[in-house]
């Protein structure tokens, strides 16, 4: 069993799924489940020493620790999400391709992470892009998939250009080799660095390339959004980390301008990521739709990942990798929960929901775990990564970026509470009285993912050790250190087990006090303090629309980047109209003139 077998197997399973899906849709969903779990098992057992291979002497594959880490993350997201594929109510026929595209995109992500060759990597990258575009299109009608495709295409062009530049300048398409060669001889290295990074930023959703995220996440089918949010955007982190670690900006740009020991360019890129955090946070606070809110939170969290990678210290890169995993797990859960909520109630608008905690308690618990991890509170995995990143920021003394990171961190508390409160807390709407807990098939992946978040948050040592291994393989001089049960930071230690222990002791004491005191009387949700007034309409008795209105007023004047893109698109459209007006007129004589002018230019163009 080597990687080629794995990828090829998944491809074939995908094609088989299409055939089966035409006959029996449910069976195709089961096939995606079986195939992706089998792949996960193979990859897990094989470890990062899973044999590579060389197909027809063209496509070479090799598993690296970094590739294994990313593949495992994505495979885990994909395979847990297959349970949601099962629950899709009888898909319309045009969606018969969904299982096929699902498996093919899965196979291609493994291809991206293990390809030895930039061109192969690019081909797989494109397959992922195309298949996911179609899958987004299966959701709500709208511009989401087009914007996604357009933005990603921009990224792909930049990447392809960078690959070709490397190919011509260094005569190699080998992934590591080309980057190493670029690091040796500056030449076009700066161009490659920037283009690669930009294309990664498109995928990660860093400002100003983030506009596809809310649209695509919102419109993607509920059962595909988890993969899109938790999995596919992480592809960008992979190339970004490759570039920043093999092509460190410090050797690239020996300019005189330095900010706190970092090259100016890195500092600017860090600032862009910081802006991404701030904008993502501010926009997430404003949203009325739960999926859009979560999408903007992804924009903010991608900023953290980017900051961790750009700083390039062992601790910050560890932080970025752990944050990547934490964010993948948590975001997947939140989108899955939204899918479950949408399935049971039919909406993801926050002002139409409320009080679901009393109807869907297990979903609520999974959601709570994920949200805590997104905010970065102990004892969840998100805390470990935020701790690592903030530690590195503090020891580097990057105050501007640190301010943004803090702002995003506190801001995440705001939008996390908003979504928690408006969907699960508050008054249960009368029309949702009959809502039942999501079926067990959907609870399995939720509990699995949130369980992993919790367990890794309490015991992150193995994971951090593995990030040290990745750093080793990426050629870092020193790596993040763990002694015993404490992760050694630059200026402080972290013992996640101890924190959990202290919290558990506190919880036991609190529970003791609680149980010793007289028992409470359970009252109905509507039996609340109303100033003596009688209220019988729960659907009106809640606070969910325009939640942070006072805060939103403070930054109401913030310009929106999507306006700029719209303006650009309009200009292009205007240009098109002009061209159409000039050259494509219904008058045959004008067309004849045009053709003859073009012909003359073609013939005599050289001479002129």
């Amino acid at each position, binding site marked *: 069993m080597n990687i080629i077998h794995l990828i090829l197997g998944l491809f074939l399973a995908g094609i088989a799924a299409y055939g089966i899906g035409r006959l029996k849709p449910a069976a195709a969903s089961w096939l995606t489940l079986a195939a992706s779990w089998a792949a996960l098992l193979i990859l897990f057992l094989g470890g990062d020493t899973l044999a590579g291979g060389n197909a027809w002497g063209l496509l070479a594959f090799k598993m690296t620790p970094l590739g294994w880490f990313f593949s495992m993350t994505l495979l885990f997201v994909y395979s847990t999400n297959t349970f949601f594929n099962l629950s899709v109510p009888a898909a319309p026929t045009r969606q018969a391709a969904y299982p096929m595209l699902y498996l093919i995109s899965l196979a291609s992500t493994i291809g991206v992470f293990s390809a030895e060759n930039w061109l192969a990597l690019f081909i797989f990258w494109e397959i992922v892009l195309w298949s996911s575009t179609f899958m987004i299109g299966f959701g709500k009608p709208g511009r989401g998939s087009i914007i996604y495709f357009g933005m990603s295409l921009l990224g792909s062009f930049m990447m392809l250009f960078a690959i070709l530049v490397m190919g011509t300048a260094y005569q190699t398409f080998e992934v590591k080799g080309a980057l190493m060669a670029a690091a040796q001889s500056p030449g076009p290295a700066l161009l490659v660095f920037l283009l690669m990074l930009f294309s990664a930023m498109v995928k990660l959703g860093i400002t100003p390339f983030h506009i596809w995220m809310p649209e695509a996440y919102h419109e993607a089918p509920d059962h595909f959004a988890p993969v899109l949010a938790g999995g596919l955007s992480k592809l960008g982190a992979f190339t970004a980390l490759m570039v920043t670690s093999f092509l460190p900006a410090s050797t690239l740009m020996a300019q005189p301008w330095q900010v706190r020991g970092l090259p100016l360019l890195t500092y600017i890129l860090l600032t862009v990521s910081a802006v991404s955090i701030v904008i993502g946070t501010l926009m997430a606070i404003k949203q009325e739709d739960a999926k859009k809110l979560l999408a903007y939170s992804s924009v903010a969290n991608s900023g953290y990942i980017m900051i961790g990678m750009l700083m390039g210290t062992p601790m910050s890169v560890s932080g970025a990798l752990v944050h990547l995993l934490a964010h993948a797990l948590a975001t997947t859960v939140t989108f899955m929960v939204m899918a479950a909520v949408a399935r049971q109630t039919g909406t993801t608008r926050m002002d139409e929901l409320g009080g679901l905690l009393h109807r869907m308690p297990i979903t609520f618990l999974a959601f709570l775990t994920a949200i805590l991890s997104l905010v970065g509170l102990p004892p969840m995995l998100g805390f470990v990564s935020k701790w690592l990143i903030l530690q590195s920021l503090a020891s580097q003394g990057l105050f501007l970026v640190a301010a943004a990171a803090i702002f995003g961190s506190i801001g995440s508390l705001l939008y996390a509470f908003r979504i928690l409160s408006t969907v699960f807390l508050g008054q249960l709407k009368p029309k949702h009285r009959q809502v039942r807990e999501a079926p067990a098939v959907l609870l399995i992946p939720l509990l699995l993912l949130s369980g992993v978040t919790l367990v890794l948050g309490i015991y992150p040592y193995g994971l951090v050790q593995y990030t040290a291994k990745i750093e080793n393989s990426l050629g870092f001089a020193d790596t993040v250190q763990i002694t015993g049960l404490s992760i050694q930071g630059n200026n402080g230690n972290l013992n996640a087990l101890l924190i959990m222990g202290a919290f558990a002791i506190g919880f036991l004491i609190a529970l003791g006090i609680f149980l010793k005191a007289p028992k409470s009387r359970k009252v109905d949700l509507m039996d609340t*303090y109303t100033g*003596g*007034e*009688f209220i*019988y309409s729960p659907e009106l008795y809640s606070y969910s629309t325009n939640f942070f209105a006072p805060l939103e007023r403070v930054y109401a004047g913030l310009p929106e980047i999507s306006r700029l893109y719209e303006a650009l698109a309009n200009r292009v459209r205007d240009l098109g109209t002009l061209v159409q007006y000039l050259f494509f007129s219904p008058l045959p004589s004008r067309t004849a003139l045009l053709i003859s002018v073009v012909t003359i230019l073609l013939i005599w163009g050289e001479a002129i």
Partner: protein
Amino acid sequence: MPKKERPSRFHPVSHTMQTVEVPTEKISPQEQAEAWEKIAHYFRANSLWMLNYCTGCCAIELPLVMTSQYDMERLGMMPMATPRQADILLVTGYASLKTLRRLIYTYEQMGTPKYVVAFGPCAVNGGIYHDAYAVLNRLDLYLPVDLYIAGCMPKPEAVMNGFKRLIELIESGQATGWKDYERRFDWYKSNQLEAVGEVYIHDEFHE
């Protein structure tokens, strides 16, 4: 108002209405629990949080009691925002048809043990409003009053004096109006229904 037969004594200042001796059905017969109740009574008596339901003009005397002139915080008393947090319900004056509903709703939202303090003759027998069409004359038919404070309106000294008396009563475990309310819930409820029709109103303004 239909008169209910009910033995009662009225005294001008600070006297409880221990009308019926509550047969003590103890939660736990153990002495330990009783001893603990005694300690708990001490804490309850010395940390009284109140909710003043300003039904009538008597309320105007409360600001004096709260602020620097008489300063009831000396006794550990504080005004609170909601019935959930409060221990005492102050009914400052007459209860009308409209306010009684709210009074009952509020009282039932409070946690036990809870106490009711009624101000002025209006709460005893209607006072000068005894023949008004909308005023309910006897508060103790509808809510278990632990303490009356006399005076129309009671002077701040009288209010302070009343509070001190309430503290004594609680400390000695005699302020048991809330138990009475639980025990004779049906009786209270029937009185309430008779007086205001429906306690929790459902009409076009409220739905």
